[in-house]
């Protein structure tokens, strides 16, 4: 039961993009086409789940026993950066089609604050290993959902006559605002 609550809350109520403001850069940058938005969402979810497990192990198996919590940030970002490289090499060797679909997005993920944010929040919320895992899957699903909805709207937007000053980033922000407003409706779910 607890795990279901964590999943729903990470995916919908505290949606990473629309209510926690994590991963805004890819949200604005890679949401022009539904295909690429979905691939990006999958790549992020994939890295998120692995990164969450590894950072959990590092924090609780290395940093806490040796009382090195002060190195939390440096350790996490190094782990994430090297993990992204490893994942990229691994996918290239194992599955060529998957690499072609995710390839270009993987390097961008290192500086995606959603990944680091997830690692930090699972420490902050004192989740155990299972809860961290579910939290990561939920957050990834929420990220993908927000990205795909946004891409769907932006594909239609191509046909609309937007006032000059609002073209580009400005109208994207306004749309994100209305989406965030809609997502606030999930607040009563739990």
């Amino acid at each position, binding site marked *: 039961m607890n795990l279901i609550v964590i999943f729903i809350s990470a995916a919908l109520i505290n949606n990473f993009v629309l209510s926690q403001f994590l991963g805004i850069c890819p949200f604005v940058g890679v949401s022009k086409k539904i295909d690429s938005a979905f691939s990006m969402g999958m790549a992020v979810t994939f890295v998120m789940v692995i990164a969450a497990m590894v950072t959990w192990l590092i924090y609780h198996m290395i940093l806490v026993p040796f009382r090195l919590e002060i190195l*939390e940030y440096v350790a996490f970002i190094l782990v994430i950066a090297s993990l992204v490289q490893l994942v990229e090499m691994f996918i290239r060797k194992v599955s060529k089609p998957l690499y072609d679909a995710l390839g270009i997005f993987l390097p961008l993920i290192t500086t995606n604050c959603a990944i680091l944010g997830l690692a930090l*929040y699972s420490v902050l919320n004192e989740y155990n290993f299972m809860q961290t895992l579910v939290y990561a899957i939920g957050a990834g699903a929420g990220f993908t959902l927000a990205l795909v909805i946004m891409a769907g709207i932006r594909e239609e937007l191509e046909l609309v006559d937007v006032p000059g*000053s609002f073209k580009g980033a400005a109208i994207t922000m*306004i749309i994100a605002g209305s989406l965030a407003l809609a997502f606030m409706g999930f607040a009563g779910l739990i």
Partner: protein
Amino acid sequence: MKNKTAFQEFLKGLWDENPVLVSLLGLCPVLAVTVSAENGLAMGLAATFVLICSSFLVSLLRKVIPAQVRIASFIVIIATFVTIVDRFLAAFAPDISRNLGAFIPLIIVNCMILGRQEAFASKNGVGRSLLDALGMGVGFTLTLLVLSSIREILGSGTWFGMNILWSSFSPWAVMILPPGAFLALGCMIAGANWINRRNKS
């Protein structure tokens, strides 16, 4: 880039290449912490400090850092300064540290800071890099201050905690909620575009 004077190097961060309104970098903290002017200012100053220190160190070490591992090196340098800021705020300004929460450590992955290291500090001398970092930092802080002021005044009727609107004003609660952040920033970007377009024609 060499033909710019030192002063122009500083000035470009304020408007022409403003990190938030023009380059759209580092938007996560911009949207998340700007519920009150105090938070916005604190976030701006923290990011500016990290940006200036890392630009200084990166430009100093730019000939030593091997090109293949430069991004990782930049991130480690940035993460070190972020840890310093985080500990400092936790010790001397616990309230602000609590309000900003996870967004202090998230300065590490702020693309504005990494972007400046990659695009500028790793290619230019110490003096120019410092000026560039200072300009970008001030531009970032001012933008955050304006956005958070708009949100705080409309959303709670106060500015830096002081009541400044008439007593019958009913606050627009949506402005301090997540949607308000997107709407206010969208309007600010549109405003900046409008001014630039008008100046051009």
